[in-house]
């Protein structure tokens, strides 16, 4: 059995004396999978992503990415992964091209111009490559953030709200692009999202989080059947609003 791309065991993160932000979760994600962490605000999704990126140190537990301990050997895996979030900006006064060039250099990408031109064409950001990042619309920013996340052709892509701020047409296009990218590059994608339609379309594995715990998991179809609902949004609402859902975490 091949090693999973992500392996999380008994992960706990406490920020202070209160309840844990992430409370003993565990999961594994196999190569080529698109998985989602779903949950309400404060459920622990972003904390989990930050730990997987090595930006946040866990209180206890084990996190291995590509078989490497992310706390001890993050630099062995960072070149193989990337990340995009609408909540982390690119410097506003630099142009889009300058921003992408800097990140390309940080990843050690050869033929930077060609790579940026390729991504600009694929993600339709060419018309504003020379515009300062601070003067982009939020939809344009999301596409630029995606371009930055794909610079190093990551084998693992972590996405926080990947299509936030995109209009329905652009959002649909971006989801199609991510599906193509995963298939073409053999990549693994883990996303945190509030967009249930997006998760239904993209993900084969969904982990429902509440109060720092994974309270249920499965494919979108399995979850919809298990809860007797018609779509994932209804499942989400049921879990978020059900007081007992967090008390019975699944193994």
């Amino acid at each position, binding site marked *: 059995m091949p090693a999973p791309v992500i392996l999380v065991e008994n992960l706990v993160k406490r*920020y202070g004396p209160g309840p844990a932000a992430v409370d003993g979760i565990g999961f594994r994600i196999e190569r080529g999978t698109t998985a989602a962490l779903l949950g309400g605000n404060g459920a622990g999704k*972003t*904390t989990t992503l*930050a730990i997987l*990126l*090595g*930006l*946040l*140190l866990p209180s206890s537990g084990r996190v291995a990415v590509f078989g490497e301990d992310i706390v001890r050997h993050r*630099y*062995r895996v*960072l*070149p*193989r*992964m*990337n*990340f995009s*979030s609408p*909540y*982390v*900006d*690119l*410097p*506003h*006064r*630099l142009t889009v091209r*300058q921003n992408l*060039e*800097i*990140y390309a*250099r*940080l*990843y*050690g*990408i*050869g033929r930077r111009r060609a790579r940026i031109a390729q991504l600009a064409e694929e993600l339709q950001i060419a018309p504003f490559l020379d515009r*300062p990042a601070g003067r982009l619309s939020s939809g344009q920013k999301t596409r630029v953030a995606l371009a*930055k996340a794909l610079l*190093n*052709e990551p*084998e693992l892509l972590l996405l926080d709200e990947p299509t936030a701020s995109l209009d329905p047409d652009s959002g649909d296009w971006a989801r199609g692009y991510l599906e193509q990218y995963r298939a073409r*590059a053999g990549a693994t994608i883990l996303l945190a999202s509030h967009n249930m339609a997006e998760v239904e379309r993209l993900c084969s594995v969904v982990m429902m989080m509440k109060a720092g715990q994974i309270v249920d998991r499965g494919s979108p179809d399995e979850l919809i059947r298990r809860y007797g609902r018609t779509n994932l949004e209804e499942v989400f609402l049921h879990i978020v609003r059900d007081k007992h859902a967090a008390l019975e975490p699944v193994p």
Partner: protein
Amino acid sequence: MRRGRAGSRRALRRFGERAFSPARVWAMLLRYLYILKSSWPRTVELLYWPTLQMMIWGFMSQFLRHNSSYIAQAFGVLLAAVMLWDLLFRSQLGLSMSFLEEMWSRNLGQLFVTPLRPYEWVLSLLAMSVVRTTIGVLPAMLLAIPLYHYSIFGMGFALIAFLAVLMAMGWALGLAICGGILRHGMGAEGLAWTVIFALAPLSCVYYPITILPHWLRPVAWALPSTHVFEGMRAVLFQHVFRWDYFLGAIALDLVFLAIGTAIFGWAFYDARRRGALLQMGE
């Protein structure tokens, strides 16, 4: 095609695993240069205060030359002092400002998911401090020559020694201040502009250390800058380079740099523990 991609991925992995890469330092420096280039008012601002200060103290020196035996002995003592003090301030501020650019743009979360190491980032901040300080202080130094017929470059080797000590002290303070901002957030950004001025009275920039009360002198001697300004007066009044001051200043610089680096390193670790790298910003 697949082989090409595999080869390219291997190259990226090797690059990312390298513990130190000048290319990553250069990437960050380039970033700060782009930021500087993007706004000419900011570049003018770098020149503005050092030049203004130099002009005020230059005219003051011209006045005092005929009214003060102290200035009459060495006309440049106030001008050299103000320029060297500005160099210390600018080296600290140059480092802190580049750091603050990352805070203002909420960009740390993006930077530290790349293979960039914290010490590579710090090296780029130091390099940018040199660039900003040069842009700020060099024109004032050059302008003093036609305006007051005074060239600080006349100090020769001593000037190089003083510059090196003051730059290093500015970096040490800058690292400690950046550590404070990392720990306490943007509410502490005022530290970047204020901390250094608390050291000015004790650095004896414009007066000899003998003016200070006896009990305060050991505290003043604990600053590398005090050794520099005493050394500067020795060069200008007695025309001797005091190696004892210089070596003392280097030793203190090493202590200051060790403390500054430790504070920054601890604050960075603590930011990873608290999740501040992802959240920090305006």
